[in-house]
């Protein structure tokens, strides 16, 4: 059985690092794993989507509508946009942060209201104020690791394995804050 995880956010939020931590952790567990990410123009502050799939044998690297077991969203509008991809019994973990997209900035459209309510009326939503937790951990940029922590709790992979990968992936000087950030997320 393949487990499908989607990571969505805004270009520049650190979604790629999150997918790498996730990918390396599941690969270390002996699963077949495939990741798909988008580089180039789509990174420039646009919507960013990464797929991570693992299981006995993974073929397609992408995830379709109604297929994701977990969606990890770094921004709440992006969570809303990704909602159709979640499986009926899946779980969405979403950072409550809001970042205005250009059509909102130019006034052409409004940022949708009460997104959290709209999502949770349809699917299983875990909302996290990852920005505050990252600040508390000592590095505002560790939002991605807070969210990885919340997600880790929703997988079968043991706590220590995640810590091992973070130690391998994150640069030494940011390690303390990131380990704290992971714990804040994991123990939410």
């Amino acid at each position, binding site marked *: 059985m393949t487990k499908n995880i989607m990571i969505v956010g805004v270009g520049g939020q650190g979604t790629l690092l999150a997918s790498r931590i996730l990918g390396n952790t599941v690969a270390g567990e002996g699963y077949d794993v495939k990741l798909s990410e988008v580089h*180039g123009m789509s990174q420039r502050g646009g919507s960013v989507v990464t797929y991570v799939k693992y299981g006995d044998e993974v073929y397609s690297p992408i995830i379709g509508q109604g297929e994701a077991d977990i969606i990890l969203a770094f921004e709440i509008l992006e969570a809303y946009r990704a909602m*159709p991809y979640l499986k009926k019994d899946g779980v969405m973990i979403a950072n409550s942060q809001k970042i205005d997209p*250009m059509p909102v900035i130019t006034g052409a459209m409004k940022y949708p209201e009460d997104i959290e309510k709209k999502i949770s009326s349809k699917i299983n939503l875990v909302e996290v104020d990852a920005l505050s937790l990252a600040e508390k951990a000592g590095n505002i940029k560790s939002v991605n690791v807070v969210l990885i922590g919340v997600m880790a709790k929703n997988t079968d992979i043991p706590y220590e394995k995640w810590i091992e990968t973070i130690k391998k992936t994150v640069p030494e000087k940011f390690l303390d804050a990131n380990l704290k950030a992971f714990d804040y997320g994991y123990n939410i």
Partner: protein
Amino acid sequence: MKKIMLGNAAVARGAYEAGVTVVASYPGTPSTEITENIVKYDEIYAEWSPNEKVAGEVAIGASIGGARAMSCMKHVGLNVMADPVFTASYTGVSGGLVFCVADDPGMHSSQNEQDSRHYAKAAKLLMLEPSDSKECKEFTKLAFKISEDFDTPVILRLSTRVSHSQGLVEENERENYELKDYQKNSAKYVMMPGNAIKRHVVVEERTKKEIEFAETTDLNNIEINSDKIGVITSGISYMYAKEALGNRVSYLKLGMVYPLPEKLLKDFCEKHEKVYVIEELDPFIEEHCKAIGLDVIGKEKFTMLGEYTPALIKKAIFNEEPDEFATIDEQIPARPPVMCAGCPHRATFYVLKKLGLVVSGDIGCYTLGAAAPLSSVDSTICMGASVSAALGMAKARGNEFNKKLVSVIGDSTFIHSGITGLIDIVYNKGNNTVIILDNSITGMTGHQDNPTTGYTIRKEPTKQVDLVLLAKAVGIERVVVADPFDLKNFEKVVKEETEADEPSVIIAQRPCALLKTVKYTGHCKIGSECRNCKMCMKLGCPAISVKDGGVIIDETQCNGCGLCINVCPFGAIHKED
């Protein structure tokens, strides 16, 4: 131990293991990371070339010189490189020679959706197509051997989903490849008519042998699961089909997409009641099947547009819908890519829009100057076209129109193919104004060095092309260097140069805000002097937005570049630490 690896990194690994010693490329999404990963291997000479044609010729030369060599590019890069490619097909190789070309179905980061398989047929070059990272490494390695066995350059065709997906790859030792002896062989390598006529015969004979190879090679793989439905597919489409259809159908997976086999396809079709061809973009395999008289179903059921998905394939073949999912019941704002906070191009386009100029645009981050609210760029065709197309517009519409017309082109793109257009302007008496957006790096593809940065791909200092001297050397007498963030002066310069009755070059100089050497500090804040005129909103900075009727600056996004301070007519924006 298996490692998780990007498709592009796996191609680099394959080249390394095959004993490659020369790689020359021009960056282009989704191919860039191949060459960036090559740099990790000290045994390989790597370069960013000025453009794909040069890159291809460096690789061809290295092959004639007896080394295994490679050149990597995006699909449109192959258009630039096509000239040497068609003739290298005639000369063949000494050391194995591989051209990697990455198509971009869905146009994640491209100006068109061309299917590069047509090049294999047109240039009569053997083409392989891997479907995941594991095959990226294996096929690349094999491509060098095939290249030498058949005396031909080989094209490795990738696509965005293969290049930018990661999968498990097993690493092996590097082959100890000995440089082949150099022997003068003008009959093979001097392509003048007398020699080329004979080489064409060789090419046609070679293709016949390659077809025989296609009938038997393990690259083309059959998996029989059913006598009802068979699927002929290749590349990423195989992975989608396999996930969508599982063991309910049989597969003929083509790892070699040119030349295509005949007998293998006929045998497969005979064994199944119905056969589908599943391939993204053009009906390349399908047309071959139909040409040899096979009754296959292809584009009647499948689109020529964009990327496929397993769901699309399931629907087309079994008419099955995906599981139920939650829907969004309102229109939500899209999040298109934008120029970063602090981007130097923002200032340039702000001025060009203010002056109401027609802007002939080019390929790079600054293509985003076409998007609202700057909405400045009028046309974008391909690398370099900003310069030459503007000359054409001016010749068509006359001098008065030309005074309201500028070209904008990045530093790397100018070197790639803007310089030839500039020479055209001088030679053919154009009066155009060309603005070179010199941000000290190749931006869009993720910060690659180029001939104007003063560093090689390995970050070794080298001679730096001086854009001022270069423009002057081709005959431009009016060359002005100006900082676009000094809005007042920049506007004055643009006005003067467009009004002049001779050609001019403005070098808009300010480095990319994402470069480590750029250190803006603090962030900007709106003060009580604000009269809500919203001039700053015209910049389209992602950090500035309207909340509850008033303008605010998001501290987490602002990098303190200060451009908005220059725009504010009331001095209401201040810098804070």
